[in-house]
């Protein structure tokens, strides 16, 4: 059998996807980027292949993407996370419908990508400056509220009052705002939903810059947070599609691209 690997080395996590010749996702792995991207990526890949009982020789093409993509020297090819994200989203949402807009919230950035009918990237926008309103921001919020990141969603849906706006989505300034709100005995639920809406408003503004066309696909780790999904849907005014594994879309896209690249190379060899 021939297998194709996509490795997405992000600021927070390393995501690896393995696809077969039909571009189906066979397996994936998510591990922390830590301090040594390259070493951890190699280890994670070896572990994943072992889990899937795939021999290294069966991996015929590897594509790396993400911030750390250039560090992964074994890769046959490098592509930007924008392209990989677009390809991965199209493939992951195949049974759902044609994806025209992608929202991606990562550990330290957020993006909006608009695609044409063929799935090509037409336009994209990224957050400027800092980690405002990204996964890191949610980590800081959860830490201040002394709850787990995975609990944020439950708190969001339990909020009965008006969501309390956090005027600053800067992780540093928001911290003092949240402490102020807690000090005045506001409920954690209303603070959490306020935080989600602040992020949602910000991301929707970003999406509007590239134009919102349905279907909208939402990925990245924070897409696991249903409360945030709900807030973005409300701000957009329509449904968004969240894939089964929102963290790995980009690495899956890289794997799909690996498959395409391999097939293409083979055809041109045969043509000779």
């Amino acid at each position, binding site marked *: 059998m021939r297998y194709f690997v996509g490795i997405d080395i992000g600021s927070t996590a390393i995501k690896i996807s393995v696809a077969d010749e039909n571009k189906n996702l066979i397996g994936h792995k998510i591990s922390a980027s830590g301090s040594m991207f390259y070493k951890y990526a190699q280890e994670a890949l070896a572990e994943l292949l072992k889990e899937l009982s795939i021999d290294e020789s069966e991996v015929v093409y590897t594509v790396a993407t993400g911030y750390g993509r250039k560090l992964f020297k074994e890769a046959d090819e490098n592509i930007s996370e924008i392209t990989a994200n677009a390809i991965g989203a199209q493939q992951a949402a195949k049974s759902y419908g044609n994806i025209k807009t992608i929202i991606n919230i990562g550990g330290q950035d957020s993006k909006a990508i608009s695609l044409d009918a063929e799935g090509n990237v037409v336009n994209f926008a990224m957050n400027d400056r800092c980690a405002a309103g990204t996964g890191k921001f949610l980590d800081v919020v959860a830490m201040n509220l002394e709850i787990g990141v995975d609990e944020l969603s439950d708190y969001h849906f339990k909020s009965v*009052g*008006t*969501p*309390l*706006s956090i*005027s600053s989505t800067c992780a540093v300034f928001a911290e003092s705002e949240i402490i102020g709100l807690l000090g*005045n005995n*506001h409920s954690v639920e209303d603070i959490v939903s*306020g935080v989600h*809406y602040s992020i949602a408003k910000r991301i929707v503004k970003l999406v509007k810059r590239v134009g919102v066309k349905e279907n909208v696909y939402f990925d990245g780790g924070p*897409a696991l947070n*249903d409360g945030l*999904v*709900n807030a973005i*849907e*409300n*701000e957009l*005014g*329509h*449904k968004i599609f*969240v894939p*089964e594994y929102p963290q790995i879309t980009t690495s899956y896209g890289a794997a799909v691209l690996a498959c395409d690249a391999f097939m293409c190379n083979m055809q041109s060899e045969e043509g000779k």
Partner: protein
Amino acid sequence: MHTEHTIETSAERQNRHKAMEAISVLNALREDFKSPIQSMGYFYDLFEKVYCHHHPLHEGKAKIGTMCIQIPSEIIYALDAVPIRLCNGFYTDDEIGGDLLPQKSCPLVKATVGWFASDNFSDKPDITFSPTTCDQKTKAGAIIESFGHTVIDVGFPRTKESEESRHYWRESVKSFAVKLSKFQGKKLTRSNLESAIKKVGYAQSLYHKLTEFRKNKAVPILGVDMFLVTNAFFFDKIDEWISAVEKLVSELEQRASDSINVAGKASPRIVYTGSPPIFPNYKIPLIIEQSDAIIVADETCSSNRMFNDMVAVDEWNLYDMIDSVSDKYLKACTCPIFTQNDDRIRRIIQLVRSYSGDGVIYQAFAGCQVYEMEQRSVLAAMEREGIPILYIESDYSPSQHGQLTTRVEAFIESLKNRKRMKK
């Protein structure tokens, strides 16, 4: 896997956005200052009820929308209807209106137009009267009418010195009274107008009592709280407003005799003028009072200009009363739309003197041309009088908060220094 949740309608989203804006200001008023006033609770709850929970206040009553203060509320009350002043302070609505008006328009006008464009009211006016005051409001009336709402223009002159203007405006008010009386199927009579004039006059007298306390060395009430009280008059039931303010007056009497000071020992006393702060756009007043200054008086149409001058009736006959009502809205008005506006300058100086003001803060909404233009003459006059003044241009967006705070703080610190030097 992601579970399905119902998605808000655009009206629900707008309501949530407005609720989020409202609650953050109300929380600041409730929590950020020392010695809170108990009877302010009525007003905090009122705004929360109306803008966070979108509760209608006037079900079953005829609601008359007014686009400016110049539409006489005395006549509306006399004809058994409720005036709803449509000047809007919500950034949410400003953004909606922004898609329909030129980019550089006044945020207040954009917000009012956005409100009608979304047609999402807890107390929707049945009909709206639009005085032809500034250009943008005049044109906004026609845009609002294009949404299918009835808007009736009330001609308003741009000069107030001449006899022709006075005559024109008196005729305008008469014609307004005729139209409203037809709409209501009710006659304007000597007795219903007299009692309405007296009721509004009584509300004004309560306002005067409130402002008297602000002359004290120890100021018992914040400027932002005062703005909230006068703002409530835009839409509240007048009788309930009156009884809430009566309670506030007696609480302030007590606080005054106990020398309770909501400001600090060295807090500069500010006279506020310019484009009207309308809930929840209390951005600049909040910055001022969170930066250790206290607003002791204002010259704005959402507060002082609305209450300061009383209707002066010579003869309690119907037509004499209508003329007296008309005169109050023209002669006493210090709106910058007028050609000559020395009255406004005199009013600001008089406020600084009688409230022992240390400085003036003049805010103009970016896009509010007349206030932007008039800053020149006001700044020159203040310089002549030796009154420090800070001119700020801002809009409804929450984005410039940091920069604005720095400017205001620097001005306040300079006033503190001046005070110290004098001693």
